[in-house]
């Protein structure tokens, strides 16, 4: 069980993704793959086993030509805080190996590869399909392993992986801050790879608890919503869309159900 911590300076890192700006270009997906040593294989068209920590979904409003509409929705791990934000994330609650854990300091749900033994309970528990299983050992064509980053360990067959909010960037930034005798980070010192890459500036990242960070205000936008809010997963990824049908798509309402 998690310790109940009442840390004064506890952070809740999170994102606000503006779907009105997102163009579906996919740069965030690739930035994530490149930053985090995500493997690839010859055929990636079976999306169930295609490892994409961040996946951009295409939503349609279901109306016939010419009233059809499209909206793209990037989905990283939602870093669920669980009911009451005590760290009872769906995945964390079921992991028998404590290989995935909720940090009360940052609000980030971690994945500890060396502990994971591949039971995949967490994958079944995650309502957002944010977790991926390594069915194979990663293989890089001869020479391509040269671009692998030492900041993120390479995963092997038999373990589960997912978006970490580029946690290594947090560690590096904190190290630097400590070295300089600071306990706190500036907003721009810790940014995720997808946020940084997005050509549309659609993704904003920061501490949801910190009134000085942009996400703090953005999440209160009248068009902001979270995915499957009624599950009380208490996710830390907010979305903004000016279109009602998109906001409704964020919760899987039944055909005729009223919001």
């Amino acid at each position: 069980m998690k310790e109940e911590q009442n840390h004064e300076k506890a952070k809740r890192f999170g994102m606000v993704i503006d779907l009105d700006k997102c163009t579906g270009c996919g740069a965030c997906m690739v930035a994530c793959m490149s930053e985090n040593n995500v493997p690839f294989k010859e055929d990636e068209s079976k999306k169930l086993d295609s490892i994409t920590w961040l996946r951009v979904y295409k939503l349609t409003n279901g109306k016939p030509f010419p009233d059809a509409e499209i909206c793209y929705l990037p989905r990283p791990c939602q870093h669920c805080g669980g009911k009451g934000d005590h760290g009872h994330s769906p995945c964390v609650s079921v992991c028998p190996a404590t290989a995935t854990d909720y940090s009360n300091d940052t609000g980030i749900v971690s994945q500890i590869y060396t502990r994971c033994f591949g039971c995949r309970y967490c994958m079944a528990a995650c309502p957002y399909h944010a977790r991926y299983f390594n069915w194979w050992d990663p293989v890089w064509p001869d020479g391509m392993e040269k671009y692998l980053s030492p900041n993120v360990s390479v995963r092997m067959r038999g373990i589960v992986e997912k978006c970490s909010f580029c946690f290594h960037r947090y560690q590096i930034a904190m190290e630097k801050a400590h070295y300089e005798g600071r306990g706190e980070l500036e907003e721009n010192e810790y940014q995720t790879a997808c946020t940084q890459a997005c050509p549309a500036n659609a993704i904003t990242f920061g501490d949801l608890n910190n009134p000085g960070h942009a996400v703090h205000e953005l999440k209160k936008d009248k068009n902001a919503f979270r995915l499957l809010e009624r599950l009380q997963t208490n996710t830390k990824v907010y979305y903004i869309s000016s279109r009602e049908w998109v906001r409704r798509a964020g919760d899987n309402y039944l055909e005729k159900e009223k919001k």
Partner: protein
Amino acid sequence: MKIDRRCFLSLGIGGAAGIALSPLPWKLADDSAIWTQMWPWTPVPADGEVTYVKSACTLCPGGCGISVRKVGNRAVKIEGIEGHPVNDGGICPLGLSGLQLLYGPTRVKSPLKRTGERGEGKWEKISWEEAITEVSKKLGDLRGKGESDSVACISGSDKGTVPALFKRFMSVFGSPNFMRMPSIQDSYEIANNVSMGFIAQSGFDLEKADFVLSFGSGLIEGWGSPVRMIRANSSWRKAGVKVVQVEPRLSNTAAKSDKWIPVNPGTEYALALGLAHVIIRESLYRKDFVQAGALGFIRFRDLILSSYSPESVEKITGVKKETIESLAADFAKSERPIAICGRGQGKAQSSLGELLAVQALNALAGNIGREGGVFAVNDPAYIAWPAYQADETAAAGIKKERIDGAGSVKYGFAKSLTNRFAGAVNSGAPVSLLFVLESNPLYSLPDTKAVKDAFKKIPFIVSFSSFMDDTALNSDIILPNHVYLERYEDVPATAGLSKPVVSLARPVVSPQFNTKHAGDVIILIAKEMGSPVADAFPWDDYQACLEGTAGDKWKILNEEGFSSDPAFTAQVVNTFPGKFDISGGIPDFTILFASVSHEGDPKAYPLFLMPYDSFRIASGYIGDPPFVIKTVEDTVLKGKDILVEINPATAKANGLSAGSYATLKTPKGSARVKINLFEGIMPGLVAMPRGLGHTAYDNYLAGKGINVNELIGTVEDPASGLDAAWGIRANLIKA
């Protein structure tokens, strides 16, 4: 509300974007996987000092500034440069994947000479000396025989010092045939030449526009400089700028626009003329700007007023006349409206008529050469090399008519018409030797069969490609260039920018293989050929040429990574009111605005195939690296099958259903495709993405899907020689 079962996120209203959400496949494979955790091979990436190198991306004409993270001597990540005038920190999926190209399996690792049949993939490694001697000797023989003009060069770009060196080589050698890959740039150049009297590109001050009317341009899908365009779109969202997208398919750009107007395929020009009709009829235009008193304008006005009323345009385009009336008023009454064309990413040309019709809207609004408007932009001014001495051969050679006809009496307005290249060669124009620089014409030009036939007729093909792409595979000798992350090169970003920027690509890592800078190779070839060709290349090597050319800007380029000093980057031409002649001095409007006849008999081919561009499928010189192909949706590519988009009504009429196989037939060829139903496409159309169906590259890309160029052809615009094909007639037969 109570939830008694596990709730899955089903991101797909109406089931259109269904994600397979069942955990069943995972459960089934449970046993086999649970105890198989073995760790036979654990690459542990070596640690080292972290540094960043500023450079420039050359993977598309966008010209983004990049910052490459290195650990020790390895490059590990590409990011955008914050504060760079083109992309300000943003970057596209292709740019992010550059390291997979650098370290990837498709690199050509040393000069290669073909030993087997063309395309068989049998090569012999040769030394650089041998390679250069062999090519120089062939060139020398041709020159000696007085056939210097039978040498041609197809380049991906004509901007920057490397293409300029190749162009210079061609001229002093005695050939007029320096060609660049076709794009909408050709169309803009001709339109500007016709209406203003000089060849220039168009640059769009989109960040300051307050109304954007796009005729099928993929504004956020790779048109112009892609990252800059997406950034502009975000600023429009914030500022409430209205964007209207005209095209028959709900592209991502249409989806993001404020208003999507589906038009009948290939009738964009008519809609533009209909809008001009309303603007002139209501007297909403800038009379000074369009020389209202001049003969050209009067002819244009009379034609528009008599033939393109909203009623008649409704019949051609399928757009309601009320929509035409209100759109015209919205456009003309905006302060800084911009009309823009070039379908998709602008990789294909459009007819001169379409260009003039769209540019006429800009001229009527008086926004040419004005803040928030359209500028005429000349080529960057910094490449000013001393004149060279042409001998008799050279002087005679460059006077010959170009293979593609550009600049001839018939195609006098054009600078380059590479779209006509294959046709010309197939009808007998002699090409004895072809240079291919930073382009993949065998794959990217429409009508693949004709292009292949043309290539077969060329006895000697020299590829400078860094990668074993489709054209390199079918060449006779490959002189591999360093990739951009291994070389210095000026990167002028001109694509649609009103204020061009020149950036500097610089070596992030040392060359990984036995490759050579194409700039050095062409200098070496020239030197090997001796006087007078060699005399035109006084530089010791490419680096000396580059630094000398940049002059006092070299320091800034090297320190900042870019320069946007207008004196250096490009000349923006001032277009004064009254300088724009809408009629373009074209005597006969009927050929200009005749609707392009689409290839094929409508009875045998009741449908219409349109290629479309996707940000996630690179379709230029560079094919998708593994990361990018991974982002392609399974409604576009499934295994090796390509999916085409059709409207459910089209499917029903043809007995097809989602996921079923069909044979897609066009007058050019046929292919087996899978069906994807899409409500966002006009009934009767079949949409296929560009960029798939490569025969070369690695297993991550080769053999996946179909190259749409195999199924489409070219249709020559009689007014200009441009390719006016919008697509091609087609049929879908249940397989």
